[in-house]
């Protein structure tokens, strides 16, 4: 397979960016992109045009019942039935809500990161053969910070923080007991803290989103506190 020049690649740029280049030409083009940052950037920019084009498609209401059919699919598999005697109510509810799936990063992230290639999302099929193999954890949602909420050595929830002046913090937590008022604070590496606000846990479970200034370099962790200031759970961002 002969090497493609920059000039040859630019002749095929639109087809490559839109993912419609036949396989043989695509393979040659991708081989060139691996060696040429300039062309890579060029294709990334064109791929954004492809994304914009798809954005023109009108939204359409799906058939009745679609929402419930889809949300039924988006549930984790039920845990294996426990051989032990029936658990206490709180624990039973815990089993029924097997939250906090471990990030399925490894294989899935590698596959999707390659499939999505680079640049605009539309570039996916254009360059899915593009090497080099990405580091899943490095490429996976690189800006998003996340950490386990832990109490007594046990994970009870998870915190996600999206950096930025208009960032946000999302958390889900299951403390297995109703909590009418919980306050959440962010801890910073310089020892200061930011009080985000309060929320409640009905039946012990809840999730919460707050918008706030999030600085990835100074954020150290998060804590959930009782109204009296006792720590219910804490999280440390690596």
């Amino acid at each position, binding site marked *: 397979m002969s090497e493609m020049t920059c000039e040859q690649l630019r002749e095929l740029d639109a087809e490559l960016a839109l993912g419609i280049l036949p396989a043989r030409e695509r393979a040659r083009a991708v081989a060139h992109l691996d060696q040429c940052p300039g062309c890579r950037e060029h294709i990334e920019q064109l791929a954004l045009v492809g994304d914009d084009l798809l954005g*023109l498609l009108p939204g359409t209401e799906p058939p009745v019942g679609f929402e419930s059919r889809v949300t039924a*699919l988006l549930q984790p598999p039920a845990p294996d039935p426990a051989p032990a005697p029936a658990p206490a109510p709180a624990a039973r509810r815990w089993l029924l809500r097997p939250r906090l799936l471990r990030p399925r990063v490894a294989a899935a992230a590698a596959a999707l990161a390659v499939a999505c290639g680079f640049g605009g999302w539309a570039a996916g099929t254009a360059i899915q053969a593009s090497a080099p193999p990405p580091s899943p954890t490095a490429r996976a949602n690189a800006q998003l910070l996340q950490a386990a909420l832990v109490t007594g050595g046990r994970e009870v929830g998870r915190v*996600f923080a999206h950096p930025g002046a208009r960032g946000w913090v999302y958390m889900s937590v299951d403390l297995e007991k109703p909590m009418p008022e919980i306050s959440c604070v962010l801890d910073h590496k310089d020892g200061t803290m930011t009080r985000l606000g309060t929320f409640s846990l009905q039946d012990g479970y809840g999730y919460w989103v*707050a918008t706030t200034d999030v600085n990835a370099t100074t954020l150290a962790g998060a804590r959930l506190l009782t109204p009296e200031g006792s720590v219910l759970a804490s999280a440390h961002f690596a």
Partner: protein
Amino acid sequence: MGLPLGRAPDEALLSGLATGDPEIAVAFVRRFQRTVFGVAIAVVGDAQLAEDIAQQTFERAWRHAQVYDSRRGSVRTWLTAIAHHLAIDAVRARRANPVAPEDLDALLDIVTQTPEQHAVAAETSAGVRAAVATLPREQARALVMAGIYGLTAQQIADMEHVPLGTAKTRIRTAMHKLRRTLGAEESLR
């Protein structure tokens, strides 16, 4: 105060999907289902197949939420791209002729409607829409066939009864015009 789920940022809902909470899944699907189904039905033209594709799109997003990278585009754009890839694959697997001429004309009219005609046009998409509308008709047709229906240059040449080189030039010229127009708009912001 926290935000109600209906007002939570898109990225927060996507992150929340991983927790397996049904309420978050409902909020996520409710927010994006019109977009996802709209892409699928536009490409495949069959409601049952479009629903299958839309379901697969949400399932993939749920399974692979960890690879979403906000630096590369919005959650909506990401979902749109997933739905589009699935729809193109489905059409390629099922049909020899990926698009009926009447469907192409109808879609072309839709994507070139001016903001005045399109009540819900967002500001960003209005610029793209206007740029597509200013393209010569044959270039706009080639662009829609390539960018939305996923047709190769050869397929476009066959459908339009023009040489392969002409089809390639139409696609490329249209893409570069759009890129220049949108780039100029961005530099003015």
